[in-house]
């Protein structure tokens, strides 16, 4: 929702300091805040002389005069100039709003130009016209900053519950709360400007779902086409609404943006047209316009007949409707505001009107002062609560020392439903962030170990890298994993046709990429959810990748992979009944169900995933094994979970065998810490200087180690290794 500061100032007199902070405090996120340009150096001028440029066909020389009779000579390329035309002149040194360019004195084909006559586009107005903006009969003593809004522009995000602030008046009402200099809005006098007959408790012309206000206006135009006032064009442009060539339409859009009501406006006289509109509304076939309203204008410009003006409000909530419903608070002001503009700028005159509004029952809520303090955790006094609510236009109906009863303003009736909502209003009024911090006592619970994390650790210790894919499966991949597919009703792309029934497809896509880019690692694995028929399982899946530059120069074969799988099954204490041979691998069974399998990538899949190398794939259903063996797992966990690592790196001299270093460490160093080599670089060659990564692992911790203790041990190891001629990195 976009608005400018000057626009909201039209409705309330209020203090505007720190407006951005206040918007945030009231729950509106500022998406964009733009300082509009000042219009220093812009002047409204009248063209008093036009002559042709001596050296150019398409340029003309204009002499313009200001209100103070200053004259300027301008070279201009536009074709819509005429003597007596009133236009906007940007003098030398002024900044063009659209481009941000500062205007300089220019010599155009031998003739000096002291400024530029502005087109609508250059001024940031949304009008589609090529020529210079014609101000028509505007008075020359008007300053441009009065004509064009130079206030700050905000774009705020309004949460779904606050449809009442999706209009200018609503924003003004909301941010001025608590900061108003005068009570009441500046437009209250519109309420009774034109007298509308009260047809209360009569079924509205639009049916029971709508409240309406109606006016009939006389056309006094005599065929003349009215021009849209510049300030309306300017404001609609600044909030991004397209400008129509029709003045009436622009004015209706303007009023609609201010109040958020729907209009139906017609000069057709037959009842059937109104009936049609009504049917469209009830049948919901009417599309929302650009402002999210159901406004419709049906004008036959050839007819000079009375204008019928309906303002209507939905009394029910509708999914796509952007604007508030059931808020009848400004119904009379809004229609009178519109009539006033139409009289001023469009040549219509008010004849008569009425309003048909169903009795609205205002919601009443009781609020306990103690509850406010309890829920917020802040010590608001009773008076503070009352001040906040009444400044937000809640009417305090009754009061006791412990509680108050308030009436919810009609525009908040869909949003404020219980005392918690009122508490939220109070908290926001005084700033959510101003609530002091209280600490919550920690309670102790039994620590539950995450098996999946332990499994992850096993595989990374085997040199595999963990990856993370999403749960979707491509339509084409699904051909290979087509047991129990679950189809999405509304995927965004074909990649999301199904939920995955296996982790393998994702891993193979990655494998293909890894091989293509020659990324050298032992393999990749993933732990994630898969969806088969109506069940979801946690799976673990690994793919071993051939490592071309592996120092022992031999890609893993099936049985080496199987060794790792068997190690894993032992590690996780998974007891299986038997193994079954498959065509390209084998399967492990528990309770006669296949639980995991290790296979070689078959030719068809290899072709589909564009993989030329030999790959081995392991897949296990973690839910089945954990369910069966949860108890026996417990013993293994402690020693694997409560572990601290510390990694050190050393530069070792030539011809010092790594094993010798390890032996000495194992002999002389603290036995409770296991020492492991995790990296040797650059090669395995004995005769080259290499850097070696040594990992210290504290296992079976009886008590937590402090960082000092760990530091001390590290230093000890560094000393020991350095004695052997190595260098700590």
């Amino acid at each position, binding site marked *: 929702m976009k608005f400018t500061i000057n626009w909201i100032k039209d409705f309330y007199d209020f203090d505007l300091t720190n407006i951005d902070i206040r918007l945030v405090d009231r729950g509106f996120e500022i998406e964009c805040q733009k300082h509009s340009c000042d219009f220093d150096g812009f002047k409204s001028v009248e063209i008093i002389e036009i002559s042709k440029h001596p050296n150019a066909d398409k340029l003309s020389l204009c002499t313009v005069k200001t209100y103070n009779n200053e004259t300027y000579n301008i070279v201009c390329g536009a074709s819509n100039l005429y003597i007596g035309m009133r236009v906007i002149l940007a003098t030398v040194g002024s900044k063009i709003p659209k481009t941000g360019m500062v205007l300089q004195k220019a010599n155009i084909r031998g003739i000096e130009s002291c400024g530029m006559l502005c087109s609508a586009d250059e001024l940031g107005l949304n009008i589609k016209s090529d020529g210079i903006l014609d101000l028509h009969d505007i008075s020359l003593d008007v300053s441009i900053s009065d004509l064009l809004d130079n206030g700050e522009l905000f774009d705020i995000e309004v949460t779904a519950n606050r449809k009442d602030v999706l209009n200018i008046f609503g924003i003004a009402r909301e941010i001025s709360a608590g900061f108003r200099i005068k009570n009441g809005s500046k437009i209250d006098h519109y309420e009774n400007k034109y007298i509308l007959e009260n047809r209360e408790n009569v079924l509205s012309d639009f049916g029971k779902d709508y409240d309406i206000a109606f006016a009939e206006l006389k056309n006094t135009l005599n065929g003349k086409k009215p021009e849209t006032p510049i300030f309306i064009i300017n404001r609609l442009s600044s909030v991004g609404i397209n400008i129509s060539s029709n003045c009436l339409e622009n004015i209706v859009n303007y009023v609609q943006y201010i109040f958020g009501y729907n209009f139906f406006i017609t000069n057709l006289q037959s009842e059937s047209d109104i009936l049609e509109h009504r049917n469209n509304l009830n049948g919901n076939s009417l599309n929302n316009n650009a402002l999210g309203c159901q406004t419709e204008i049906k004008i036959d410009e050839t007819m000079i007949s009375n204008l019928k003006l309906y303002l209507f409000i939905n009394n029910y909530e509708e999914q796509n409707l952007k604007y508030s419903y059931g808020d009848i608070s400004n119904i009379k002001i809004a229609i009178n505001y519109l009539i006033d503009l139409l009289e001023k700028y469009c040549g219509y005159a008010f004849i008569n009107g009425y309003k048909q509004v169903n009795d609205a029952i205002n919601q009443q809520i009781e609020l306990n002062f103690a509850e406010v303090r309890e*829920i917020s955790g802040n010590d608001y006094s009773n008076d503070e609560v009352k001040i906040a609510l009444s400044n937000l236009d809640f009417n305090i109906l009754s009061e006791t020392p412990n509680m108050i009863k308030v009436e919810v303003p009609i525009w908040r009736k869909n949003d404020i439903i219980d005392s918690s909502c009122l508490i939220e209003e109070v908290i926001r009024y005084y700033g959510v962030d101003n609530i002091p911090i209280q*600490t*919550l006592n920690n309670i102790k619970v039994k620590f539950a170990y995450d098996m999946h*994390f332990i499994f992850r650790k096993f595989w990374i210790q085997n040199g595999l890298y963990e990856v993370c894919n999403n749960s979707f499966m491509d339509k084409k991949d699904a051909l290979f994993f087509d047991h129990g597919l679950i189809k999405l009703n509304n995927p965004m792309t074909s990649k999301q046709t199904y939920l995955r029934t296996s982790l393998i497809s994702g891993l193979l896509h990655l494998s293909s990429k890894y091989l293509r880019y020659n990324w050298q*690692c032992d393999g990749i694995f993933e732990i994630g959810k898969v969806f088969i028929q109506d069940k979801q399982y946690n799976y673990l899946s690994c793919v071993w990748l051939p490592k071309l530059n592996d120092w022992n120069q031999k890609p893993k074969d099936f049985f080496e992979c199987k060794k790792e799988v068997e190690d894993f099954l032992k590690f996780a204490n998974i007891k299986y009944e038997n193994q079954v041979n498959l065509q390209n691998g084998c399967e492990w069974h528990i309770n006669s169900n296949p639980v995991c399998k290790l296979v070689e990538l078959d030719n068809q899949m290899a072709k589909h995933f564009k993989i030329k190398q030999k790959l081995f794939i392991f897949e296990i259903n973690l839910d089945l094994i954990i369910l069966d063996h949860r108890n026996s797992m417990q013993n293994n966990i402690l020693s694997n979970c409560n572990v601290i690592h510390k990694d050190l790196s050393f530069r070792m001299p030539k011809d010092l065998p790594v094993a010798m270093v390890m032996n000495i460490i194992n002999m002389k160093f603290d036995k409770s810490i296991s020492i*492991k080599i995790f990296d*040797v670089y650059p090669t395995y*060659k004995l*005769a080259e200087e290499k850097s070696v990564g040594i990992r210290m692992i504290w296992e079976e911790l009886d008590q937590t180690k402090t960082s000092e203790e760990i530091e001390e041990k590290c230093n000890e190891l560094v000393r020991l290794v350095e004695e052997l001629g190595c260098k700590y990195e």
Partner: protein
Amino acid sequence: MLHENEINSIKQNIEEEISSCKDMKGLILVKSKFIGKEGILNAYLKKYLKNSELSNENKKSIGFEINQLKDFFNLFYRKKISAFQNKQIPTDQIDYSIPVSSAIGNLHPLSLSKEYIHKIMQEMGFIYEDGPSIEKEYYNFDALNISKNHPARNEKDTFFINDDVLRTHTTAVQIRALESQKYVDEFRIYSIGDVYRRDDDSTHLPMFHQIEGFIIDNSASISTLKGFLLDFLKKFFEKDDVEIRLRPGYFPFTEPSVEVDVKFENGKWLEILGAGMIRKNILSKYGYKKGFAFGIGLERITMIKFGITNIHDLTDNHYPWLKQYGNSTEN
């Protein structure tokens, strides 16, 4: 008789030349230079033996002296060879001592922070609960006050599967936990899980993860919520000077609701989570009184913690990236 100076200078030459040898090849050349057939010592021998003026006794003693020089040479020569042998290992000698299975892989950053959060939450007294990813509309929407005509429920924002949805938030777990009536009085529940929304652009993934937590406690208030969140974020980011800011927010299932921003080193505030007091109508349905709930995007806080700038890196799984951002331990 050889002149003593002559003998000494030969000895000195032998010593110098042998010690300046750098490899076997040089050493062999030196050997042939001194004691080869055409070597210096043989030349002496020939020279004196052919001299008929010398007496046989003199010849004998000269032969003895030259033999002594040969021995002298051989002594240095062997010493040098054994020095070479001790020092020099052929370049293709392999260090058989290097352990074979030494490569260690990396965990995905998301797993790391997931595990990290498991630890923090359990330390703070939370119990883990999980729910299905394919969720009934009731748990995902209706029970959370998200009415039938709420925009989130249309086909543009949510994935549907037959009559069910792919859960759009883990808050569904909250309803399941409350409904189960497993917990009484005061308790704390958390969940970490996959959630799905129909968004796929530079800052959104169609599947992401949320951390959901709530407590039912008589001391629950906006004030203790703030204290709790600050505590959690300090632990997660492992910093003591975490600064947070509360802003008003709106969620259909909490009231009052807040959004929480965290301040970063560059002075910028970044929105990080949403929270609030659980709505009375939800709690009273299951017989509970007061509590607060919060939801955090796992991707977002992981990116902040590990300094990741592009959310799509998390699912691209490129090896160089995994090497850089992954880790083999949780410490």
